[in-house]
């Protein structure tokens, strides 16, 4: 298979796209700021001493609302796309997505427990309360994934097919548990649960951002180091181990990175579908299956895509806001169908 786009061209293109997405995400919003004010406020935020006269509003909107939101979008998009590559590499199937190992459904279960059961944890200290949802979602994702991984192991070997089936079974189980919580929920909590399942970058704040940024940085620095091993895995498990790859360790790392990354992303922004599935596809179409290109390029593409989707989410119905999961699925699903019909998938 020939690669239509040279890696260098691809990286330059994606980097430019990403910078454009960041700029638009900072410059556009329901509040229309003059371009000059946006620029000045951005410079001020970077520590350039400019007179603050008349910039208070621009600085507040940029610094407190748009910048955390943009950072959240970058981290979530990048991590979701990266985890998609990891899962597609692990299962050697381009249809795999991070939900397959149960991390999404586990996180949803955790969130449902936090949202519906929140009143039962009445005695929590106030400082902890706002983070309960994120924490439960993160732990839920991690827990279910660990269980899936554990079920796939036998005699020190991880059977990927068993893991896949265990993932499907546990996803079904977690979904029905979420269903049970939905049944128990009253009207108001039900709405919260529904909206959480559609994801949103709305209300991003720095205190929620740091944990995710750390995880995102760690995962996107670590996984590309394993690109060669992932390439070898494409040939098959035994072939990879004949090439000197510790396949068991690789599998463990892939599952762990996905659980950690997607768990943190979902905890911060709720469920955002299709980025993990579609972005790796898109990059593979452009640059071929080499993981040395695919991994870093997916981070850039995923981050840019999510920022553009968020622009639609915040501008389409302004001053109201669309959940971003709706936007990504609107872009993702038709694209996926297109891939299917082209016989690529």
């Amino acid at each position, binding site marked *: 298979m020939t690669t239509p786009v040279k890696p260098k061209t691809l990286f330059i293109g994606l980097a430019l796209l990403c910078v454009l997405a960041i700029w638009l995400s900072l410059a556009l919003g329901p*509040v229309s700021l003059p371009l000059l004010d946006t620029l000045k406020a951005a410079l001020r935020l970077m520590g350039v001493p400019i007179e603050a006269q008349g910039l208070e509003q621009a600085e507040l909107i940029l610094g407190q*609302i748009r910048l955390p939101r943009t950072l959240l979008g970058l981290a979530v998009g990048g991590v979701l796309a990266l985890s998609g590559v990891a899962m597609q590499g692990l299962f050697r199937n381009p249809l795999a997505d991070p939900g397959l190992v149960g991390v999404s459904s586990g996180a949803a279960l955790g969130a449902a427990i936090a949202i519906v059961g929140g009143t039962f944890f009445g005695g929590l200290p106030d400082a902890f309360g706002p983070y309960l949802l994120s924490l439960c979602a993160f732990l839920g994702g991690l827990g279910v994934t660990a269980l899936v991984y554990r079920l796939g192991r036998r005699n020190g070997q991880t059977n990927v097919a068993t893991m896949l089936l265990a993932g499907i079974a546990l996803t079904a189980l977690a979904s029905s548990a979420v269903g049970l919580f939905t049944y128990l929920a009253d009207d108001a909590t039900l709405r919260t649960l529904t909206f959480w399942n559609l994801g949103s970058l709305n209300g*991003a704040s720095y205190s929620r951002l740091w944990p995710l940024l750390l995880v995102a940085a760690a995962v996107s620095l670590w996984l590309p180091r394993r690109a060669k091993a992932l390439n070898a895995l494409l040939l098959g498990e035994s072939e990879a181990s004949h090439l000197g790859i510790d396949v068991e360790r690789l599998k463990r790392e892939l599952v762990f990175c996905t659980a950690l990354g997607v768990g943190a992303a979902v905890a911060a922004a709720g469920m955002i579908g299709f980025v993990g599935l579609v972005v790796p596809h898109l990059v593979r179409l452009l640059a071929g299956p080499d993981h040395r290109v695919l991994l870093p390029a997916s981070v850039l593409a995923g981050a840019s895509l999510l920022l553009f989707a968020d622009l639609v989410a915040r501008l389409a*119905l*302004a*001053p109201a*806001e669309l959940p971003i999961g709706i936007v990504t699925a609107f872009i993702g699903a038709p694209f996926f169908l297109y891939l299917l019909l082209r016989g690529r998938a």
Partner: protein
Amino acid sequence: MRLSTSAIALVVGLLVNHGAQASELPQRWVSAGGALSEWVTALGGESKLVGVDTTSQHPASLKALPSIGYQRQLSAEGILSLRPQILVGTEEMGPPPVLAQIRSAGVQVEMFSAQPDLPTLQGNLQHLGKLLGDEAKARELFTGYEQALGQQKSWLTKAQATQKAPGVLLLLGHAGGKPLIAGKDTAADWVLQQAGGRNLATHSGYKPFSVESLAGLSPDVLVFSDRALSGDAARAALFKENPILAATPAAKSGRVFELDPTLLVGGLGPRLPHSLVQLSAGFYPSQAKPAP
């Protein structure tokens, strides 16, 4: 140029300041909560509203205002783009980080309780009256409300002397299909009680019921609240989708009444006493209709 504009603004500002003692009061309002928006309107503040949420459906003129979306899923920048001075809503308003962002932009954020009881309403109305600069009107509205509910209560006592409270089920549905039954701890349950009905459902919250157990409860009265249809169309859809309901005593005696679903959101609204009178007239047909 810039200087002269601000000078004019200053002069105008001074004049306005001088003219109205209410200059300190917020003039640009965003309301997130159906009943609250109605009260703001009733207190004469409709012209100050610059945006409302999706639960604010009454009066119909509010629908022309920019929509800030669902009250639990507000967007900070979206609301700030309306340049409000105050955001009012019930405790359902959120998410909290967004409210914090709005507050940090210098917008006054006022939370009201949606608890359906008179003391809460009194507090809310007082507070709203103060913010709108018409406390007398707020007091007047509350007294009227209290009286209306008081009359309703004494009428009920009289009615219940001759007829025992009818067993009622409230069906909350969408175009008739798969209705949810209102149980305890819901606004609907409270409305039914105030209208003198005995809610036959004993679960809590709004839950789907099997039609069989529904008919087994043999309600004397059915109240439906449909989000998609209204009037006879909703009634017809309800019986078409759930034919077994036709066998209930309520259907046989024709005691199937409608309740506007927007009454069930966000605490006590100004339209409630009137609806209660209508409902209880249906619950106690032999008693002379109470004064509206």
